């Protein structure tokens, strides 16, 4: 008599004691010992770094999908990278919450503007936002650019515009921001590193 694992328990449930059934020679055929499959087994693993403190712990980010064009990756898990020689797979209580920062309800999703005196945000397009900002900057620069100081020395600076740079942005962002700022003549800029 072929009895599957499921049927076997059904039989037991019908009133007979399992052990006695087994003693009578009935036992289920070898059961598929199926453990629920490891959730991350089918996830894509990406090597990245915790953006918080300057230990810059290596992290592994797990996303759904396989990075093919039509598969939208969604981050489902973040943990320490065991290969990283500094953190060796560990994360601290700050880094342990990374997924909740990435998925924070307070992430910005669209460009917005708050008009002068207004009490609310208004959604605008990227093109509108950047065009308006560029127009402001050009008008400001053209009106306040200092070509020569009072001694007649060429100084080519624009100091009515300022910029504060992030210490959590990557080196390449920092570099290109700096290159653009100086090319505009900006001198009033600083970074979080100061404070």
């Amino acid at each position, binding site marked *: 008599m072929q009895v599957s694992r499921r049927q076997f328990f059904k039989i037991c449930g019908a009133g007979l004691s399992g052990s006695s059934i087994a003693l009578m020679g009935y036992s289920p055929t070898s059961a598929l010992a199926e453990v629920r499959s490891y959730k991350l087994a089918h996830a894509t693993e990406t*090597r*990245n*770094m915790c*953006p918080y*403190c*300057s230990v*810059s712990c290596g992290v592994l*980010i797990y*996303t759904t999908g396989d990075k093919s064009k039509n598969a939208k990756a969604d981050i489902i898990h*973040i943990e320490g990278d065991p290969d990283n*020689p*500094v*953190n060796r797979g560990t994360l601290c*209580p*700050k880094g*342990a919450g*990374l*997924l*909740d*920062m990435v998925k924070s*309800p*307070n992430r*910005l*999703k*669209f460009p917005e503007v708050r008009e002068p*005196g207004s009490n609310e945000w208004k959604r605008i397009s*990227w093109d509108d936002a950047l065009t308006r*900002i560029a127009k*402001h*900057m*050009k008008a*400001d620069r*053209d009106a306040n*650019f200092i*070509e020569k100081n009072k001694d007649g020395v060429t*100084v*080519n600076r*624009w100091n*009515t*515009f*300022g910029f*504060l740079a*992030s*210490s959590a942005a*990557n*080196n*390449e962002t920092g*570099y290109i*921001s*700096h*290159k653009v700022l*100086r090319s505009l003549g900006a*001198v*009033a*800029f*600083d*970074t*979080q*590193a*100061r404070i």
Partner: protein
Amino acid sequence: MTNHWVDIKNADLIMVMGGNAAEAHPCGFKWVIEAKKDRKAKLVVVDPRFTRSAAVSDFYAPVRAGSDIAFLGGVINYLLTNDKIHHDYVKNYTNASFLINPDFKFEDGLFSGYNPEKRSYDKATWGYQMETVKGGDSFAKVDPTLQDPNCAFQLLKKHYSRYTPDMVSKVTGTPKESFLKICEMIAETAAPDKTMTICYALGWTQHSVGSQNIRTMAIIQTLLGNMGMAGGGINALRGHANVQGITDMCLYSENLPGYISAPTDADVDRKTYLEKRTPKPLRPNQMNFPQNFPKWFTSLQKAWYGNAATDKNDYGYEWLPKRDGAYDVLAIFERMHQGKMNGFVCQGFNPLASVSNKKKVGDALAKLKYLVVIDPLVTDTSEFWKNHGELNEVDASKIPTEVFRLPADCFAEDTGSFTNSGRVIQWHWKAADGPGESKGDIEIIATLFQKLKAMYAKDGGKLPDPILNLSWPHRIPTKPSSAELLMEISGKALGDVFDPKDKTKVIAKAGEQLAGFAQLRDDGSTSCGNWIYGGCWSQAGNLTARRDNSDPSGLGQTLLWGFAWPANRRIIYNRASCDLSGKPWDPKRTVIRWTGTAWAGNDIPDMRPDAAPDENVMPFIMTPEGVARLFAPGMADGPFSEHYEPFETPLDKNPFSPNNPKALNNPAARVYKGDMEVFGKAKDFPYVATTYRLVEHFHFWTKHSKLNAILQPEQFVEIGEELAKEKGIANGDRVKVRSNRGFIKAVAVVSKRIATLTIDGKKTHTVGIPIHWGFKGVTKPGFITNTLTPYVGDANSQTPEFKAFLVNIEKA
């Protein structure tokens, strides 16, 4: 860090002062634990609070916030009076023997040359005695016996002789026995084969004497011979994951990328500019590495202006803006507050929360015409105009600023490189797109720039040349890739680069990535966006993406993991880990050694590879002296450090110079009109306050993260039991903490962690204030702690004094 995270495991003694690595850098702190476990190293913690770093220490001593120089000056005095220094190291590798101008003086708390109106020093007397030698070179005079009363060593001894153990205890509140116990532990590392490492952070930098706090420790580490050694060094545990990299890219006014000092009005042309920045050696045979300055600068100009930079137009020198004064963050908000600024961009920066005196910052922002906030998250700054009750008491209708808020991708949505505190540049990869319409920071800046460029091309305007000529060799102009940019930063050959020793030999062909900054030229044949990152993307590819974590030396150097600047060197000044003959002071921890023909070992030598020891090329190659400076004339507030009280102090007088009111606070610190007036006095605000960070939170960022908000949901302040009793405050009571600039309300945590100290005979209480709350976040809304802090910075770095000020506290 002169060394790096894993290297902490090589120390014999770890000192944590001005920081709290166990809570602020937990995964780096594991290397402290490894040192304790495997080397039987000892951990000493000195802090106003009994922190979690203190909880695992071998010895802890309390100290009053803002009195670190008194403590460390006392250590210097102990080492010198008890002759616990590394003699050979001090004699040969420091400027101990250099003779100082006999007119240099220190009297009544001030160094010679002080101008009280300008609050600054004329440093004319702070120099070396010079002599002209055969051949016409001018060198600093030395006395190798260290006996001349004007040699740096004798002046050092004299200066710190006032820092007696009794004086230290009187000023810092540290019990004298505890202080002496720590001195003994530190003194043991004067042995050539023993090292101490110091792990400090914002607890030292965020003071009006911040730079001198670190300077004082640097003097200690050189006296002990701990610089350049495995397990030694001066190790700044920095803030964000890429704060080191952004500092290296020099996103601040004073410097161009790679710490190239930016031109000022005085630098009227390229020649003048270069001459001032290209030093001559101060001693014979020294490497004087900054002599290469013209190569670094010219290669940067080529990276920026490309073919438009030629020798005919001084490589575009005129296009670079010239600075006419300070433009640090405090100076910027001062200008803004005076109505001198129109536009402002905050890129991943929340100044309303993170700059001192929130009221002043908020008022300043309200005077702008336009503000642009680029951030992954809703920052408090982006809503500075919005009324959030007593957390942000403003009237939106009266604020005319036009505010744009642009969604940026965060780390997980971005490919590029971060540089950790140990100078290791590491590449990371994008995992997913950001939410909604968010864009990468590079794309946002590039698109904005392309718009401006198009407007200048079409309509003209003021000086369009540097905008139109800016080199932009990107496949997609609005979306340069991080790879393209890192290659530009690292450097490439524009023409063939020849071997200087053999002009027929090409060492890099036109178009190739350069192997390192040694290949840079000042004739326009190379380009390099940041010389110290030179070679991080060579012909071998992106070295920052390397992931071989093998560690054959066992020292934790992992030379094939990422790329450390400069030149993949993991421990800088490592020539100083060997004696004059090139033998390691501690062969068991060999960093490098002289093999008989070259320098080699477990690191990239910080020395010309073929400089034989008998050539006497000294280890500190970035100074024209070739040696470390015990006497440092470059500092704004003195070639030696001196204890000055914080700008808000519980004392009426500086105990070190009680008769000179000018020497109460740092005499060279910049104070703006209006800010001096709102410094609080001890009679109204009797308690010392210090801000700090919690292990569960990161700055003003994790307040948006649910897990962190669950762990630490609500704002609190911490006080000791004695103060609590005096004020009738119980654990869990709601309290109001006031400074002369505003107030915050929070829950009181009464703990044994903050001791009441006796300062100059008076009982002094401390209030600890964690910083992490604001009016935006998924935590409970809280007050911005910088409502309380004073608007004054360190005399050298202008880092605000967040760590020592005065408050009062009462039940709310």
